[in-house]
């Protein structure tokens, strides 16, 4: 089966600019996750979707970050305006809905964002 697709792979922007990331999950996976991975740290969940509804966005900085999952398939994550501390790898993952999510997630290769 095809994996989780993410684009772009790399992005360099200046602070205060905006940026958007795209994710296409594995076909049939109802649950989609966006993670932020700062260098030297483990991934941190930003937002979790079940189909096109939000399950958890408690750690999403809502003043600058937004995410949507139209039609319960593809998803976009946007940052506007970006700050230097947003420099990180943004990982998208998908899974079957619970309890099948206990089988583990499939991750994409991420987008490395550098804010200068």
């Amino acid at each position, binding site marked *: 089966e095809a994996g989780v697709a993410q684009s772009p792979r790399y992005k360099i922007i200046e602070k205060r600019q905006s940026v958007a990331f795209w994710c296409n999950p594995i076909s049939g996976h109802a649950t989609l996750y966006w993670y932020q991975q700062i260098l030297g740290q*483990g991934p*941190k969940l930003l937002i979790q979707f079940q189909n096109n509804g939000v399950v958890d966005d408690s750690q999403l900085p809502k003043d600058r970050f937004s995410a949507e999952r139209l039609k319960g398939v593809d998803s976009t994550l946007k940052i506007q305006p970006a700050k230097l501390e947003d420099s990180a790898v943004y990982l998208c993952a998908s899974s079957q809905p*619970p*309890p099948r999510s206990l089988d583990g997630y499939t991750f994409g290769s991420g987008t490395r964002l550098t804010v200068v």
Partner: protein
Amino acid sequence: AQTVTQSQPEMSVQEAETVTLSCTYDTSENNYYLFWYKQPPSRQMILVIRQEAYKQQNATENRFSVNFQKAAKSFSLKISDSQLGDTAMYFCAFMKHRATSGTYKYIFGTGTRLKVLA
């Protein structure tokens, strides 16, 4: 609150040797799941192995096995016959259940960078 601790930031091992990566966690739950993920330079997180807390038998996947000590809240990963392709970051993760929504979320450790030497 659940936490996951990986106390070894970096490790190295000779090719064909065995290495053990440590992980401890803290939880008040009785039923939970633990995972090890591998993140090579390609950045894609790859599931290595998972363990259900209610199972006493340690999980094994080919060269990868775990030593799960529930009372000690320890979950170490053993890699046998290390290969150059095992060079990667390894993350231990605890799967937390959200009672309000019936969904799950990972709590990841900070990772151990493993280098396999030729």
